[in-house]
């Protein structure tokens, strides 16, 4: 069965059907249909992990059909131990987003749900594509639904944020397009990523391609100094948009480094590793400090995302198995944790309509159930052992120590900054006396919100306590990736 195709097209087709037949006077039917479609899309991805062959680093569940004969482009899909987790993460996040919007979105419900379903299918496509052009098409196409989500359902400065998001990302990825075409030419007319992996290239060409990819992926990750679109996009996006942005769209950039930059330009990656490490450390330390002074909860979590993604890029460019696996684990756990943090902010925002930290205080008195879960996610965000946030950071720091103690020491300060900004926010928002009558009147979680946050909490705890299945599945692929990227492939 073409599982990957189903995972891509099921949400897209159901999104299109919702657009065609959904109406606001049947909003409940639309919501249920979206939920069923998103859950079904998640269910079809489960066999990808259960049926995964741990013994091989080759692509699995491969599908290949000719697509554009003139340029030798094929519709080629497949997953390895790395990408399979992102397919699952994407499919897992979509039902959560649908649930989170249940009562909040009342206008143009079908368009909202359809945008997220279509976006989900496109994102799965990015993670499965084995053809450079197919990857690019999915990668770029995700801009359209996200642009509309931010612009239509966003906050007061949504137009500015939507444009910034769109143009920043487009600017980065257009250079990548030139690099893809160049690789197509160099490989003698092939868009196959796996062929590109074996393609010998001169150092000069590698560096040029490396930086073309760098611009596309660094904007997406986002790395300092091209991160400035992210706080704006997060603050203005509706809750669901923030969740998808943080949980999945940021991973596109990091995934791009794994799938393109490291294997296709290994020598340039090694030569410029210092540069990537420097940018990562700036993200970890400087952005961590920036997060400390934020007044807006969404902005704070957005900056914390940039800092956490700094860990991911640091892990990739240390080139050892522990850091690379750690970085991938960090990507997955960040998907759960930051997604959950944004859901929590959404819960508060739906009631009080403010994201300012100063508008809250003593929420624990009126919303005990909610505060329990929120504090759990906050702990995961600062990397408490036993939660998902700990595993990745620990692996990356441990692996980095082996390479260079001082880099590891600088990176490890994140445990201080992370705890600083997260716990300080928790203290100001959740603890203390009830700050104002609005907080005093808050109602605790309803069943829908409780369900949604509990699922996230379960994911965070399971991954924190027992990360072995995650690392097992990715192990062979990571080893193969490192082996591949340590062999020079310069043409003399």
């Amino acid at each position, binding site marked *: 069965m073409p599982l990957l195709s189903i995972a891509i097209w099921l949400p897209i087709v159901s999104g299109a059907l919702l657009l065609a037949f959904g109406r606001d006077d049947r909003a409940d039917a639309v919501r249920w249909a979206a939920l069923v479609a998103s859950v079904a899309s998640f269910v079809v991805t489960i066999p990808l992990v259960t049926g995964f062959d741990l013994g091989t680093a080759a692509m699995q569940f491969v599908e290949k059909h000719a*697509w*554009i004969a*003139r340029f030798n482009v094929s519709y080629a899909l497949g997953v390895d131990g790395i990408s399979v987790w992102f397919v699952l993460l994407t499919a897992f996040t979509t039902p959560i987003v649908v649930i989170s919007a249940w009562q909040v979105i009342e206008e143009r419900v079908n368009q909202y749900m359809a945008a997220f379903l279509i976006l989900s299918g496109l994102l799965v496509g990015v993670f499965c594509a084995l053809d450079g052009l197919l990857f690019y098409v999915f990668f770029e196409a995700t801009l359209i639904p996200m642009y509309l989500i931010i*612009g239509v359902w966003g906050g007061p400065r949504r*137009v500015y944020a939507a444009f910034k998001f769109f143009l920043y990302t*487009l600017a980065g990825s257009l250079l990548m397009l030139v690099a893809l*075409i160049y690789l197509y030419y160099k490989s003698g007319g092939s868009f196959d990523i796996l062929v590109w992996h074996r393609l010998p290239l001169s150092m000069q060409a590698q560096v040029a391609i490396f930086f073309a990819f760098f611009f596309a992926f660094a904007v997406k990750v986002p790395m300092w100094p091209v991160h400035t679109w992210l706080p704006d996009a997060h603050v203005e996006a509706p809750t669901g948009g923030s969740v998808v942005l943080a949980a999945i769209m940021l991973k596109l950039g990091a995934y791009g480094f794994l799938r393109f930059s490291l294997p296709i330009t290994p020598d340039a990656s090694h030569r410029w590793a210092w540069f990537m490490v420097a940018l990562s450390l700036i993200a970890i330390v400087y952005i961590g400090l920036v997060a400390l002074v934020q007044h807006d909860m969404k902005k704070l979590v957005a900056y914390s995302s940039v800092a956490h993604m700094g860990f991911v890029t640091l892990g990739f460019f240390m080139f050892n198995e522990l850091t690379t696996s750690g970085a991938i684990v960090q990507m997955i756990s960040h998907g759960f944790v930051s997604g959950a943090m944004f859901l929590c902010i959404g819960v508060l925002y739906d009631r009080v309509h403010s994201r300012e930290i100063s508008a809250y205080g003593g929420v624990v008195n009126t919303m005990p159930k909610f505060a329990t879960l929120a504090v759990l996610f906050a702990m995961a965000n600062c990397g408490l052992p036993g939660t998902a946030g700990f595993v990745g950071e620990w692996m990356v720091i441990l692996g980095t120590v082996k390479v260079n103690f001082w880099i590891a020491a600088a990176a490890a300060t994140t445990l201080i900054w992370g705890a600083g900004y997260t716990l300080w926010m928790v203290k100001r928002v959740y603890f203390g006396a009830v700050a104002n009558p609005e907080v005093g009147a808050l109602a605790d979680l309803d069943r829908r919100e409780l369900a949604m946050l509990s699922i996230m909490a379960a994911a965070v705890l399971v991954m924190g306590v027992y990360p072995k299945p995650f690392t097992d599945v990715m192990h062979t692929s990571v080893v193969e990736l490192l082996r591949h990227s340590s062999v020079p492939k310069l043409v003399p």
Partner: protein
Amino acid sequence: MNWQAVYPILPEITLLVLACVVALTDLWWPGKDRIVTYCLAQASLTIVALLQLWYFWGGATYYAMQRMVVADPMGHLLGLFATIAVMTALVYARPYAASREMLRGELFTLSMFSLLGMLVMVAANNFLVVYLGLELMSLSLYALVAMRRDDTGATEAAMKYFVLGALASGFLLYGLSMMYGATGSLEMNEVFKAIGTGRINRAVLVFGTVFVVAGLAFKLGAVPFHMWVPDVYQGAPTSMTLLVGGAPKLAAFAITIRLLVEGMIGLALDWQQMLVLLSLASMLLGNLAAIAQTNIKRMLAYSTIAQIGFMLLGLCPGVVSGNTVSASNAYSSAMFYVVTDVLTTLGTFGMIMLLSRAGHEAERIDDFRGLARRSPWFAGVMAVFMFSLAGIPPTVGFYAKLAVLQALVSTNVPGFVWLAISAVVLSLLGAYYYVRVVKVMYFDEPVDLHPVEGARDVRILLSFNGVAVLLLGILPGGLMQLCAQAIVRMFAT
């Protein structure tokens, strides 16, 4: 009558006869609201389109009338698309023209004659035939633009179009006469051979080339010969803008290929340099000026200039250091670009007419405000057009840009690779104003609360147009292959 002599130009002859039939029928029996004329015109165009399709299917190349005209697959394909473009334009234009007292027989006959001019241009194998077709097309279009006599804007546009168009024809004619003087022949293949001998005075050839390229650039609307484009697009009634901005681009592309490639490929080094400058200037000025516009027709005019610039880029890497290996790749990319651009342009102007009512022209970008609430479907269709013009996948505009960029990069000449990078950066500028239209439709509240209602045929065809742009974006292979075939066959003969 010698059947062999007539067979290759049967589509043109058929169109000429049928255009006369339509003109006469309209005089005696126009029917209510000129329905008879309209149906007859559409039926005639359908016959012509089918003939073109039939010839293209056959795939053979014929010369006729003492090699004055050539009927080859490229010509048939471009002719087919031009015919379809005119048919589409007439469907979109009819209700619009009817509500503005422009639904006269001339609308149909003149469009048919302008199409005849285009088909002659497409089939030209001789400098004089090129000029003949160009004038037939242009004169019909001048008259169409001027059809609303009492409207000062339209009259001004027609005057500008006429004066500048005449100037351009003069340029072209002057250049062609120089080529004739230098090579001693008016026929493309003879000129090609004469240039190939290398015994012709280069100064005269290059001088002639400059004028030919300038004339073509005028007709295509490339900077610095673009002045007429914004004024004519904005000033002409939208139905006429559609006729000016759609099919004629295909014909202008065809004569560009005929003159520069079939006739003067020996001088490619010279005209390629000129095209590089023209295209960079067009993309820069078109994209920058479009950002500042509030009138959507004017914005689309500047966007057309930028699109033409991108298309011309595809013609640049045809000959690399005297080598024509990449020629068919490059020219078919440009052809794909222009065909898809016309397809999208037709749709955008169709949308403007759909939103216009009697007494209200939806000409400002603000008239699209909140369209997503008034009509989600047509807002979606317009968004597809805009994303396609901006080159965002999965719409066909992306593959058009990809094809051209690919043609540039695969030459592996650093200069062309830099050209590709600058084209990419300039198209980022372009993305801003296209995406702004999407913003206006989706993020803003509607000011105009009239429901979107148009004639049913317009709505159906517009929807089909939008779906085509999206579907060709998902499966672009077929159309690409057709363009490649047409160009490869042209080189084979």
